[in-house]
Each structure stands twice: as structure tokens, then as C-alpha cells.
């Protein structure tokens, strides 16, 4: 409706121009030849066609035809024509204006199409860049799903990745509502992936299969579509599927399907990237497990055998009449072994990604308090200063147990590696959308070269005092616990000599009550 409205307005403007030209020519009618009139009218008609398109051109052409006959061909003010040769002039004029209007219109359409293609190309290149640039493949897939949805203007677009025989949803955009398809969505997708054909489910429940290689066929638009499923393949291998659906039937023109196929290629690329990432992650986990295993084997001889040797020796002594009070050493060594076994179990769980993470709303007060309480025995004579950033309570989203373990470990280390009465400072400060919790000691500090190595299992700083109680796993576990809840654990030299370990967790807003 709006389109024809605009056309009528353009036609009116063109008719005004025609009327103006006619009035001017009428004034000089006596001095004008038929050829002059034909030329000027043709100019106006061509101008109108170029600006307003075919419709305006045709309206203008036929009006000019009538005006020419009525006003400029004798006898004036009738449609009759005296000179038969004038018919030729008039007819030539009409044909020329119609052909010109047609040609101009065709040109315009080509230009429009070229522009549309340019927009499409732009969209595709943006998408390409997004697919390559997104930090994670999941994000790229969400972007692709959004573009597809808007390009085809359909409510829902979901992407699935093939995992063995099953499909897993990886990205989906949803604008509310639910689609009530007659055919089970999962089985349709599975069929599509197996057969390599695209499928269209219509509102009446009928199913149409399309060849993926010739998506333009049939050339007609498909209307009343409830759902559209397309296999996604790359280098001949089907890696996933795409599904469009809506509560109310939508149309898929041949053009839509052409665009969809191009976009689907990017979706396939994104899914391929996701699969590669997964493989890489598995390889990384295996590599870590391998490193851990090597470190474990290397340390088993020392870290496990030393306490066992002590226990065995003292038990033997006591049995043969030694001092019973020496049993306390057995207790200590047993504790140490127990801590080592716990640590190894946790580390292997973390490396296998098997340790559950419960991200919940927690207060920083609470976790620091619990850490101080748990570390009381180790802290001994150390004074602990707690510095909290602001008056408001700091609230974050983190796993309480994991964060507690990290902080206890940091406090224990701080106590262990600094002079017996040196103060330890715990600071918590909001930094944009994160909260930094740091533990600073007054120890000797850590050499630059050692700063990363101390987070490796069983690593001991060369020349450091032999640690009688630790298992050499604390920081390795702490860092992995931090990573498991999306944070980081790092170390930097502290201004007041010593080291500052900083953990960051996600900040949250305080509820208004």
C-alpha cells in the first residue's frame, strides 16, 4: 500500500511537470513544429520514468499522447487528426515513450538488485569476520543464528552440532512463543542429518524435501512454512543442522533459500570450529593429566615414601619399648599423607573437569571470615589485617567452598613463608565487574622466573626452606579452582616487600531490601 502511494505521488509531480511544459508550449503553439512538441514531451516522459519507474513513465506517456493529439495536432481540441502522417508521429511518440520507460525501469531494477547483493555481501563478510574473531565458537554461532533469523525474518533459528549419533543444541535465538509442529523436531533433524536433504514442514503438516545443492528449486516461494531444517556440512561431512521455526507460518522465497545456503556455510564453519575447540580442550586436559602423572610418579618416591618411612620407623621403635610419646610424630605424618591424598584426588578431579562448581551469590565478608577461621591454627602469631574496599558489603557470584580453599591456601602460604610475627594483609576491592581478593605477606618475595612455576604441581622454589607439612599441591589446586569458577589467581611483588597473591571473582549487586 505504501509503495503504490509513493508511486501516485511521483506520478502527480510528473503530471504537474507535464502540464507546465504543455502550458509553455501552448503559448508558443504557432511557432512550434510537431517535432519540437514530440521532443519536449519525450524529455518529460523520460525524466518521469527515470525518477518514478515504469508506472510513472506509462501514466506520463499516455497523458502526453492524449495532450499531443488534443492540443497540438490539427484540428485542435478534438482527438481527430487531419493529416494521416500525423498518426505516424503520434504512434512513434507513444512507442518510444513506452520502450524508454521499460528500459529505464529494467536498469533501475538491476541497480537495486546490485545494491541488495552488496548489502548481502556486507552481511556475509561481517559474519565471516565474526566467525573468525569471536573469542569462543559458541559466541560466533549465536551471532550467526541471529543474522540468519533477521535475514529470513523468522522467529526462531537454532543450530545443532552432531555428536556421534545425537544432535546437541549449541545456539538458538528465540523471540518468545512456541511452535507447535506436528512432526517431532528432533526426529526431523536426525532425518535431515542422515539423508543430507533439507526438509520443509508446512502448516498443513505436509513435508517437502529439497535438494541441498539446488535450494533455489522450486523457483517459486514456499509459503505457510512451520519449520525448515537444513543439514550443515563442510568438506562433504555433515557436522550439524540448522532449524528455522515460527508459531505462525512464514514464507521462504527462492531468494531466501539462496541467502540461507550462503549463511549456512558460515554456520557449518562455526560448528566445525566448535568441534575443533572441543578436541583441543580434550587434548589439553590429556596433556595436563600427563604432566600431573609424571610429576606424581617423580614425587611418589619422595613425598609419599618419606612420611611412610618415618611412620614405619617410629612404630617399630614403640613396639620394641620406645617412648610412646613419639606416636605424636606418627599422627603428624599421617596427617601429611592424608593431605597429600586429598590434594591428588582433587587435582585429578579438576583436571578431568569432574569437580562440581556451584556459582552462587555470596558475600566476601563471609568467605574471608570462614578462611580466617579455618586457618587459625596455621596463622599462629601472625596478625591478619582485613581491608575491605568500601562501606557496602561486597557481594559476588562464586563457589563458596572453592574460594574458601583458595584463600585458606594463600593464608597458609603467607604464614609459612614470612617471619613468625609479620602481619598478613587481606584486601578485597571491587574493580568494575570483578572483585579482587588479595593476600599479601612480608616474606622474601618470589623471583620473576619462579612466578609461574610455583603454580605447577610439586614445584618447589630452589633453595627455599624444605616444607615439612605441605604436599606441594596447594597453589596448583588453588589456581585450577580459580579457573574452574571463571577467575584467575596470580602473584605479584607487593610494595611492602613480599608477595601479593590476587584472586578475582565475579561481582554482583546488592539486593535492594
Amino acid at each position: 500500500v505504501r509503495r503504490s502511494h509513493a508511486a501516485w505521488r511521483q506520478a502527480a509531480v510528473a503530471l504537474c511537470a507535464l502540464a507546465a511544459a504543455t502550458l509553455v508550449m501552448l503559448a508558443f503553439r504557432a511557432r512550434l513544429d510537431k517535432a519540437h512538441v514530440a521532443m519536449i514531451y519525450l524529455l518529460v516522459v523520460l525524466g518521469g520514468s527515470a525518477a518514478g519507474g515504469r508506472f510513472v513513465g506509462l501514466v506520463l506517456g499516455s497523458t502526453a499522447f492524449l495532450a499531443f493529439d488534443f492540443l497540438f495536432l490539427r484540428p485542435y481540441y478534438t482527438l481527430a487528426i487531419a493529416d494521416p502522417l500525423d498518426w505516424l508521429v503520434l504512434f512513434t511518440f507513444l512507442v518510444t515513450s513506452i520502450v524508454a520507460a521499460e528500459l529505464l525501469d529494467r536498469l533501475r531494477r538491476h541497480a537495486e538488485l546490485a545494491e541488495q547483493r552488496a548489502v548481502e555481501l556486507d552481511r556475509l563478510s561481517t559474519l565471516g569476520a565474526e566467525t573468525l574473531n569471536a573469542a569462543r565458537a559458541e559466541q560466533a554461532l549465536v551471532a550467526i543464528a541471529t543474522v540468519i533469523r533477521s535475514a529470513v525474518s523468522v522467529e526462531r533459528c537454532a543450530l545443532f552440532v552432531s555428536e556421534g549419533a545425537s544432535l546437541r543444541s549449541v545456539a538458538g535465538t528465540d523471540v518468545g512463543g512456541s511452535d507447535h509442529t506436528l512432526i517431532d523436531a528432533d526426529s526431523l533433524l536426525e532425518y535431515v542429518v542422515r539423508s543430507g536433504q533439507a526438509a520443509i514442514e508446512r502448516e498443513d503438516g505436509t513435508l517437502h524435501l529439497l535438494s541441498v545443492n539446488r535450494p533455489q528449486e522450486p523457483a517459486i516461494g514456499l509459503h505457510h512454512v512451520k519449520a525448515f531444517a537444513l543439514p550443515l556440512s563442510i568438506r562433504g561431512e555433515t557436522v550439524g543442522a540448522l532449524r528455522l521455526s515460527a508459531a505462525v507460518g512464514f514464507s521462504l522465497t527462492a531468494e531466501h533459500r539462496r541467502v540461507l545456503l550462503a549463511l549456512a556455510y558460515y554456520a557449518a564453519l562455526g560448528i566445525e570450529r566448535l568441534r575443533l575447540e572441543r578436541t583441543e580442550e580434550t587434548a589439553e586436559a590429556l596433556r595436563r593429566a600427563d604432566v600431573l602423572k609424571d610429576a606424581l610418579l617423580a614425587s611418589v618416591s619422595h613425598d609419599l615414601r618419606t612420611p611412610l618411612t618415618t611412620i614405619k620407623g617410629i612404630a617399630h621403635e614403640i613396639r620394641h619399648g620406645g617412648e610412646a610419646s613419639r606416636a605424636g610424630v606418627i599422627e603428624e605424618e599421617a596427617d601429611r599423607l592424608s593431605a597429600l591424598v586429598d590434594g591428588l584426588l582433587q587435582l585429578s578431579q579438576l583436571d578431568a573437569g569432574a569437580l562440581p562448581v556451584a556459582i552462587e551469590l555470596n558475600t566476601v565478608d563471609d568467605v574471608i571470615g570462614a578462611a580466617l577461621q579455618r586457618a587459625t591454627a596455621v596463622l599462629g602469631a601472625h596478625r591478619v589485617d582485613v581491608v575491605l574496599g568500601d562501606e557496602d558489603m561486597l557481594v559476588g557470584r562464586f563457589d563458596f567452598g572453592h574460594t574458601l580453599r583458595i584463600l585458606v591456601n594463600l593464608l597458609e602460604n603467607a604464614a609459612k613463608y614470612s617471619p613468625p610475627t609479620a602481619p598478613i594483609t587481606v584486601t578485597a576491592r571491587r574493580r568494575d565487574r570483578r572483585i579482587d581478593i588479595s593476600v599479601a605477606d612480608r616474606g622474601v618475595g618470589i623471583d620473576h622466573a619462579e612466578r609461574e612455576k610455583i603454580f605447577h604441581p610439586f614445584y618447589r622454589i630452589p633453595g627455599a626452606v624444605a616444607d615439612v607439612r605441605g604436599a606441594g599441591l596447594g597453589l596448583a589446586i588453588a589456581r585450577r579452582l580459580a579457573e574452574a569458577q571463571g577467575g584467575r589467581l596470580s602473584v605479584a611483588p607487593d610494595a611492602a616487600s613480599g608477595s601479593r597473591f590476587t584472586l578475582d571473582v565475579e561481582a554482583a549487586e546488592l539486593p535492594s531490601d
Partner: protein
Amino acid sequence: MTVLVIDDEPQIRRVVRNAVRDLDLRVVEASTGTEGVDLAAAERPSVIVLDLGLPDRGGLQVCRDLRAFTAVPIIVLSARHGEPDKVALLDAGADDYVTKPFSPVELQARVRAQLRRASKDAKVAKHIAVGNLIIDLVRRTVSRSAIPVHLTPTEWDLLRVLATHPDQTLTHHQLFHAIWKGTHGDMQQYLRVYVGQLRRKIEDDPIKPRHIKTEPSVGYRFETGP
């Protein structure tokens, strides 16, 4: 008074027996869950020490079976120290848990605390005084070092529930249930924030709380001891 020890391992039973010797308790022992439940009905013990790893049925099930007929304090011995296990136990009706390996002193302290609590439960308190904190349950007022403390309704509910279960760990779930009466709203996730706000009002140092202690990943405990 009698303590019932339900454990299949004689070594552990011996450790428990030695730990409670100083408390002047009669010790009754059971080596299976079935036997334990039967003895609990017959002997009416004052406290039960229950091992999770029993040959005939899970400790969690024994806990539920006991709760079907008795409110006697149950202390669970657990080898695993995964927090989810502890939470499940407390939700099933256990009063406390001790993680293996434990020191006899620790177990003794836990048994003593449960006995003390059981004797207090008998009389319904109208007001609770702990250290410098006085809670009047009838007039719904709280004062810290004789200065009245203003609490929001949610903070009051939280304090009342905790204070009327002294020295007992209440799981997050139990606290949600007691405060929000089973309505599952958005407020539940703020439990920890309310605890933080309550501590800022009633504790001298909210970072080192004396009254409301955190049981990491399990819940909170209102402490009355020194």
C-alpha cells in the same frame, strides 16, 4: 545416659568408645544399620553416633529410619568430605557430622555439644542470652551490649531460626524453608547476603563472627559456647 554407636568396623567403635569414656556414658554398640535401628528403639539412647558406610543399608537411609520415631541427636561419621553429602545428611535429619579421620577430642566435643543441646531443648526458652547478645523471643527484640538492635523482618526470622537451634548446623535448604516457608522466590539466593547484614548488626567483628558461624558450603550454626 546412653550413647549408641552404629559402625561395622570394630576399630572405629573402639575409637568412639574411648572418646566418650570421659563423658560418663553407657556405650551400646551395633554393627549393622538394622541392629542400630532396633537398639535405638529398645535402649532409648541420649545420642547416636552413626557411621555412613554400613554393610546392610546406607547411612542416609538409617538416618531417615531413625527420624521416623525418634528426635535423639544423631552425629554422623563420614569418610567422604564432599559438602553435598553433608548437606544431604543434615537434610535427612542428622544433627552433626564428623569427617574421618577425626581426633577423639573433636568427637568428644561434638557429643558433649549435642547432649547439652538436647537438655536445653527440653525447656522452651523465652529469651536467649549469649555473650553480650540478648534475644527476646516473645517481644521480638534484640540487644547487643544493652543497646537495642533494629532488624528487618527477614533478618529477625533468620536470627530466630538460628538462635532457637543453638549449636546445630542448619543447612541452607533448612534455613530457606524456615524463613520463606517453602515459597520458592528469588529471595532465597540472598540468604547469604542477609546473614552478612545480620552479622554486621549483631557481631562485634563481622569478619570474625562469634555468634553465627559459617559451615562452608553446608549452612550456618548459632554458637552458644565460649
